[in-house]
């Protein structure tokens, strides 16, 4: 009897190695290491300003790292020229924080845009695809509307339909539920799960909404000061022994922040009462 060969771990789809990025004197990514496996649903959490959106923008070449390397399917991509980036970008769908729909185009034309640009479809085929994508996000009736006539949640769903128009392998979500009420936020969460299931995509979701993170992620990563400080399943995060992680998960301010607030209100009272 032969012993079964040990399967090597699957090669990561995306790998970031010691990525540094600073804007002027503000250091945003500070030696970030991260691997993303095919078909996983990775959620990147962390307080605002820790470089979550900056991380996503590095994956599609909207930003370039100051140091470090980024690999996609084993090929280094961070040093490519703008033209060389384009074939890589077609593997990605990017849902921007505010949707970033083109104001001057109707919902239909917004979704048709990448199809007309990169596909070889006839107008009839484009119409069919647009309808199918809109049906997927539950907004078939809005095809003729302009983005200005849509609500915030609808805009994000249309933007999602546009992001998946060319059936990308990886979908990047930048704060998909920010600015939405809890019910609309949950619609977006369900949608992310549905796409994950139906299209077998790899999802990377950046958020600070923990309800959303627990719902859509099968792996969570926490970013703090430009570094990954924790990684694990949603359960690992709920039962983390790291106080920084636990505080973020439970939404508690740090004792230092509370002390600073108390000190500020004490000072304000002293000023109101006047000296002596």
């Amino acid at each position, binding site marked *: 009897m032969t012993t079964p060969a040990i399967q090597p771990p699957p090669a990561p789809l995306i790998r970031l190695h010691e990525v540094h990025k600073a804007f002027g004197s503000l250091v945003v990514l500070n030696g970030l290491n991260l691997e993303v496996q095919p078909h996983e649903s990775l959620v990147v959490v962390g307080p605002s300003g820790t470089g979550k959106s900056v991380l996503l*923008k590095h994956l599609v*070449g909207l930003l370039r790292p100051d140091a470090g390397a980024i690999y996609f399917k084993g090929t280094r991509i961070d040093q490519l020229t703008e033209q060389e980036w384009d074939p890589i970008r077609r593997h990605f769908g*990017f849902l921007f924080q505010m949707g970033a729909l083109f104001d001057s185009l109707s919902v239909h034309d917004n979704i048709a845009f990448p199809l007309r640009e990169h596909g070889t479809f006839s107008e009839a085929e484009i119409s069919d695809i647009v309808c199918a994508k809109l049906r997927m996000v539950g907004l078939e009736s809005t095809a003729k509307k302009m983005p200005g006539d849509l609500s915030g949640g609808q805009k994000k769903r249309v933007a999602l339909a546009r992001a998946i128009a060319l059936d990308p392998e990886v979908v990047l979500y930048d704060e998909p539920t920010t600015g939405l009420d809890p019910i609309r936020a949950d619609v977006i969460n369900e949608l992310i799960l549905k796409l994950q299931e139906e299209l077998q995509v790899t999802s990377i979701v950046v958020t600070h909404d923990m309800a959303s993170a627990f719902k859509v992620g099968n792996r969570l990563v926490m970013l703090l000061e430009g570094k990954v400080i924790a990684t694990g399943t949603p359960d690992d995060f709920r039962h983390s022994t790291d106080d920084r992680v636990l505080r973020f998960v439970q939404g508690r301010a740090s004792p230092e922040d509370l002390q600073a607030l108390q000190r500020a209100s004490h000072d304000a009272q002293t000023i109101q009462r006047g000296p002596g």
Partner: protein
Amino acid sequence: MFVETLGRKSTKALEELGDYSRFAGRIVYWMARGPGKFARRQLMQQAYEIGTLSMPVVMVTGAFIGMVLAIEMYPEFRTFGMETHIGGVINVSVIKQIGPVLTAVMLAGRVGGALTAELGTMKVTEQIDALRAMASDPIRILATPRVAACLMMMPALTIGSDLLGIAGGYFMSVTVLHVDAGDYWVNARNAMDNYTVFSGLIKSMFFGLAIATIGCYKGFNCGSGAQGVGRACTESFVASFVAILVMNFFLAKMLNDIFTMIWPNAGMTL
């Protein structure tokens, strides 16, 4: 300290100039290669917004400039009994200098600022990033049709302004100041030649190129928020305005030199 500031500022200015040149170079590249169906479709819409909608205002300013030139020149020329010659002077100055420059300045205000505001808002709302993320070069999609439309419409607008300038000068001189119409036209025709018309239109194309490329460049590189867009619009207008006047000087010198090179014995018109 002073030297340091000067050095830093000139490095920044040179960097921006280099950036702008690369940006303009890419637009020219896409114009030559063909920017694709989407951009081609936008061209007509932009030509309408930049050209057709600017025509009335450009014509009105042209007419008033023609009239004011007649009023100012008439007494001077009358002193020497040469009032029938003002037609030539008005028409040559309108076609060679005032028409193209004034049209360009009007367009820098009306269109340059609007281009910057539109593209700047698209930058701030991440629409330009969205284009890049969808593997579509935003310079090809957004800047190329706007620059092409401006380049195409500037000569047309200049012709509109010139025509009304000529009409305004004629109206003031002949109808109001009673200069003899026949002599006015004969002198006006003698002063004019094809090269004068050509140099005015060539200049207008350069101005159109400058206005649109500066407007688009400033929009693409604007700072964040409403304040960033506002500042970019102001910078865009100021930069276009200065560029127009500086270019006008060098183009006038160059075109006159070319004229003397081709026709060494001909007298200069103005």
